[in-house]
């Protein structure tokens, strides 16, 4: 990066009174090949009862962001800077015992693949009841009762009988439900769902998403939904954050971002989605090039090597030299003027989306 402009979000650190507030988050891993800048100056807010969708390619920093919220990164090789405030509590500087009290209790995570995220060595009931015992001091019997209650809530038939089963005795969809039951057992205020439906077939996927919505209405939890499936986001989220190379490149409400996207990367994402109305022979349009290496990210705008509209930007090589800022609220981190953006979108992109 040749010119690093000031952090992309305007509010001063700690000024936000949102339920979850992430400010200027930087996450770096030390690897044998060098330092990986997995998250590079990310800021966002999340209110109770709302859902934030985070989309982006693999390696865009979605999952890393959420692991840092939970404090589950490897402390030996990871450096975290910035601020993560959950309900007034600063998480980056919190001690491990403090975090342990919050994890599974106030904030919980649904993992992508329940087959690997549930231990094969312990019964489903035990794994669901464990955090309940830890955080509420419940007895073994109470925890088991609670596990049965949760399994019923997520729609597992014969929960009383299935509670002592092991994960391998459950089907894929049931495992994901059990996983959700496990993360919701203490009614967390913040739920992080890391591609919760990727491993499931479409009908089960819809059921799981409905289940999450119902549970959110019941408990008023805030949800962060990490996915690369824009369909899931359209269905679930209120707000949307598009990430690229560890940075947020566009944000807005789901409707705004999907209807009038402003960032060339978002255009690429939308154009690469298959359409029901399209001819079956019509090839999908991938984004040219490959995601950048985070060991040595491109200077300026990280998307510039793949951007088809770079030449439209006024002033020589601004995209290469200057990192575009993401405005607070609705907007995109791009040097194109808003007139250019809407013109390109209406003239070039929208017809392609069909």
């Amino acid at each position, binding site marked *: 990066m040749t010119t690093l402009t000031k952090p992309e979000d305007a509010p001063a650190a700690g000024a936000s009174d949102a339920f979850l507030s992430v400010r200027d988050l930087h996450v770096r891993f030390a690897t044998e090949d060098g330092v990986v800048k997995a998250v590079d100056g990310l800021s966002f807010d999340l209110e109770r009862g709302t859902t934030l969708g985070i989309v982006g390619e693999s390696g865009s920093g979605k999952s890393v962001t959420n692991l840092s919220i*939970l404090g589950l990164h490897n402390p030996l090789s990871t450096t975290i800077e910035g601020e993560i405030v959950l309900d007034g509590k600063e998480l980056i500087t919190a001690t491990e015992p403090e975090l342990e009290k919050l994890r599974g209790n106030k904030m919980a995570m649904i993992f992508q693949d329940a087959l690997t995220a549930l*231990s094969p060595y*312990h019964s489903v009931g035990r794994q669901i009841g464990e955090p309940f015992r*830890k955080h509420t001091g419940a007895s073994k019997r109470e925890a088991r009762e609670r596990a049965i209650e949760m399994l019923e809530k997520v729609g597992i038939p014969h929960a009383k009988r299935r509670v002592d089963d*092991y994960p*391998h005795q459950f089907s894929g969809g049931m495992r994901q439900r059990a996983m959700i039951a496990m993360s919701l057992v203490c009614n967390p205020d913040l739920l992080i769902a890391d591609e919760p439906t990727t491993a499931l077939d479409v009908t089960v996927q819809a059921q799981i998403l409905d289940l999450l919505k119902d549970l959110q209405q019941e408990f008023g939890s805030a949800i962060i939904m990490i996915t690369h499936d824009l369909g899931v986001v359209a269905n679930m989220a209120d707000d949307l954050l598009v990430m690229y190379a560890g940075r947020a490149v566009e944000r807005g409400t789901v409707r705004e971002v999907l209807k009038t996207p402003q960032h060339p990367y978002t255009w690429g994402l939308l154009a690469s989605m298959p359409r029901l109305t399209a001819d079956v022979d019509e090839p999908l349009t991938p984004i040219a090039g490959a995601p950048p290496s985070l060991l040595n990210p491109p200077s300026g705008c990280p998307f510039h090597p793949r951007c088809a509209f770079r030449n439209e930007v006024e002033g020589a090589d601004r995209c290469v030299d200057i990192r575009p800022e993401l405005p607070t609220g609705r907007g995109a981190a791009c040097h194109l003027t808003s007139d250019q953006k809407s013109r390109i979108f209406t003239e070039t992109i929208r017809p392609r989306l069909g």
Partner: protein
Amino acid sequence: MLRFILRRTFGAVLILLLISAFTFFMYYAIPQDPATLACGKNCTPDALAIIHKNLGLDDPIPVQYWKFLSGLFAGRDFAVGHCPAPCFGVSFRDQQMVWDTIMDRFPLTLSLTIGGLLVFLIVGLGTGLIAARYRGTWLDKTFSSISLVLSSMQIYFLGPVVLGIFVYSTGWLDKPKYVPFSENPAQWFMGLLIPWIVMSVIFTANYTRMSRSTMIEQLQEEHVRAARAKGMTGRYVFFRYAWRGSLIPILTILGMDLSALLGGAVVTEFTFGLAGIGRLAVDSVVGKDLPKLMGVMLFSAAFILLLNVIVDALYAVIDPRVRLS
């Protein structure tokens, strides 16, 4: 579970039968008359004939094998006296009942195994767990490099060095010898201390490295991270989630090592001048002593099979995905 045990026992018996038949018939492929060996230097044809008769070598080989088999279950009578079941026969060389000789040697082998096992399991698994827990720190590096050096050691090198230092130079310890536990537990312990330690050094190093690497693998499992995400403490997750999974590969190797040790620690026994099953096995081969050979072979094979069944049963205890049917 019962079906599993029955099925496996049946299989084990079948394997033992095959081993015994193979050994028996292969032995007679050696172009040498076992009777001349027993007869000694001043052998007359008459003496040879008597020995032939006494050893039962006049019968056709299949008949001899049948007699051997029935002796295992019903006992046999020999010139030197009655041999009760399980009768492995009488040695061609020293005219002793083979079963008695094995039972005479086995306590030493068992003592060596148990003592060594305790040392290498506790020290090996312990250091491995510590190295995995503090992965990448100086502690891990120290344990890892020491274990790498030690695992490339040999008992027949390390043994004399330790004897030289602790017995011959300083006189802190006595030369290793076997005193039965029932006779004098303190002498039993002191007599076997050096063999235990030297023997376990090599095993320990292997268990350190294996325990460390399987543990590191397990700690990277998603379910370990998921358990941390539930707020479970690091120590709880380390033992309840990660360690549980690392036990399976360790158990596999442990079963193999244990059955090898119970079949006789040949190098250890020779290094320290102890007479256990290992020395018996070598003696019987060198002496072309069929009954002894059969006895040691079947005895060791039985342990290998037994431990196999136990290990398989333990898999199911550790991992609920394993079903014993």
